[in-house]
C-alpha cells in the first residue's frame, strides 16, 4: 500500500482526535482541577468544546454567544457573529464532521457493537428542526430573558449542553473537591441528559448533532455556499446510490453537500465507484 493511501485511511478520525487533543491540550488543568486562563481564550474553537473543560485552550462559540447576550448593556453580538460568518463561510458543517470533539465522541459511540444501527430517529423530518428551536429559544432568547429573569443565564449551557457535562463538569468535579461538594440537582439533570445521549448515540448516528446542536444549526445555514463543498458531477453519475447508502445521515445524492444536514464526512466520496463526488 502506498504511503498516501495509509495516510488517507481513517483520515477523518485522525484529524478529529488531533483537533480534540490540540484544543484541549492544557494538561495542568486536568491534573489540578483548574482551567486555562491565558490569552488564547480571546478566540473560539470551531466546534462545541466547553471552555470550562480543564484542558480547553480556546472559548466555546455557543458559550461566547450566550456570554455576549448575557451582558447588561445588550449589543448585537458582532464578536461571535463575525466568527460564525468566517468559519461558516469557509467550512460550513465540515466543522461538525471533522473538528468537533463532541462529534468525535458520538462517532466513537456509534461504533460500539451494542444495538442495531439506525441513521435517523422516527419523525426525523420534524425532529431535525429541534436544533433550530434550541438555538432560538435556549441559546438566544433563553439567555436573554426566558429562564433567568433579569439575572441572565447561559440557558443552553445550563440546562442542556452535554459537552459541558462531559468535557467540563466530569473532569473538573473529579479533580476539585470543593466543586464536587456543590454538585446538586442541576448537575444530575445534565448528567442524565448526557447518559441518555450516550445510549442513543450507540443506536442512532450523532443524535445530538442531528436534532439538538445549535452550533450545527448555525453552520448548517452556511452549508449552501461555504467554500468547502462536496461537488457532484452529475454527468458521470451512474445512479448506483452507493453514496446514499454510505451517507450516515441518510441524504440523497442531490441533497449531499448543500443540505444543512450534511456534515461533510466524505463517506459518500469514498463510496462512489464512478468517482463523481469530490471535495
Amino acid at each position: 500500500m502506498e504511503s498516501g493511501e495509509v495516510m488517507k485511511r481513517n483520515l477523518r478520525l485522525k484529524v478529529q482526535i488531533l483537533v480534540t487533543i490540540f484544543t484541549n491540550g492544557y494538561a495542568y488543568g486536568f491534573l489540578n482541577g483548574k482551567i486555562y486562563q491565558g490569552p488564547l481564550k480571546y478566540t473560539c474553537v470551531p466546534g462545541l468544546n466547553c471552555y470550562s473543560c480543564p484542558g480547553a485552550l480556546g472559548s466555546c462559540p455557543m458559550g461566547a454567544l450566550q456570554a455576549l447576550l448575557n451582558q447588561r448593556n445588550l449589543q448585537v453580538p458582532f464578536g461571535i457573529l463575525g466568527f460564525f460568518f468566517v468559519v461558516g463561510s469557509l467550512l460550513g458543517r465540515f466543522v461538525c464532521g471533522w473538528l468537533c470533539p463532541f462529534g468525535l465522541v458520538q462517532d466513537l459511540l456509534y461504533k460500539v457493537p451494542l444495538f442495531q444501527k439506525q441513521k435517523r430517529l422516527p419523525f426525523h423530518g420534524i425532529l431535525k428542526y429541534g436544533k433550530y428551536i434550541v438555538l432560538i429559544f435556549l441559546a438566544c432568547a433563553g439567555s436573554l430573558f426566558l429562564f433567568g429573569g433579569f439575572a441572565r443565564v447561559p440557558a443552553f449551557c445550563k440546562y442542556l449542553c452535554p459537552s459541558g457535562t462531559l468535557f467540563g463538569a466530569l473532569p473538573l468535579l473529579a479533580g476539585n473537591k470543593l466543586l464536587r461538594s456543590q454538585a446538586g440537582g442541576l448537575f444530575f439533570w445534565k448528567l442524565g441528559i448526557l447518559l441518555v445521549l450516550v445510549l442513543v448515540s450507540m443506536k442512532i448516528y450523532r443524535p445530538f448533532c442531528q436534532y439538538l446542536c445549535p452550533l450545527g444549526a448555525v453552520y448548517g445555514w452556511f452549508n449552501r455556499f461555504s467554500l468547502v463543498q462536496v461537488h457532484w458531477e452529475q454527468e458521470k453519475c451512474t445512479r448506483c446510490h452507493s453514496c446514499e447508502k454510505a451517507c450516515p445521515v441518510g441524504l440523497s445524492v442531490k441533497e449531499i453537500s448543500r443540505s444543512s444536514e450534511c456534515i461533510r464526512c466524505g463517506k459518500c466520496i469514498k463510496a462512489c465507484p464512478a468517482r463523481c463526488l469530490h471535495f
Partner: protein
Amino acid sequence: MDFWKRCKEKAWLLGTALGLLFLGVGAVWGQLEVIWKKAVMICLECIGIG
C-alpha cells in the same frame, strides 16, 4: 443564469469578508474581552452547579 451561479459560487468570499468586518466591530466594542472574561472563570452553569 451563469452570472447568478458564479455569484453563488463566490458567496463564501462575501461571507468571510462580512465576518471579518463583524469581528473587527466586535473587537472595537470590547466583545472579545467579554468572551475572554467569561471563558477564564469556571462556568458554574456549564458544569451544572450555578
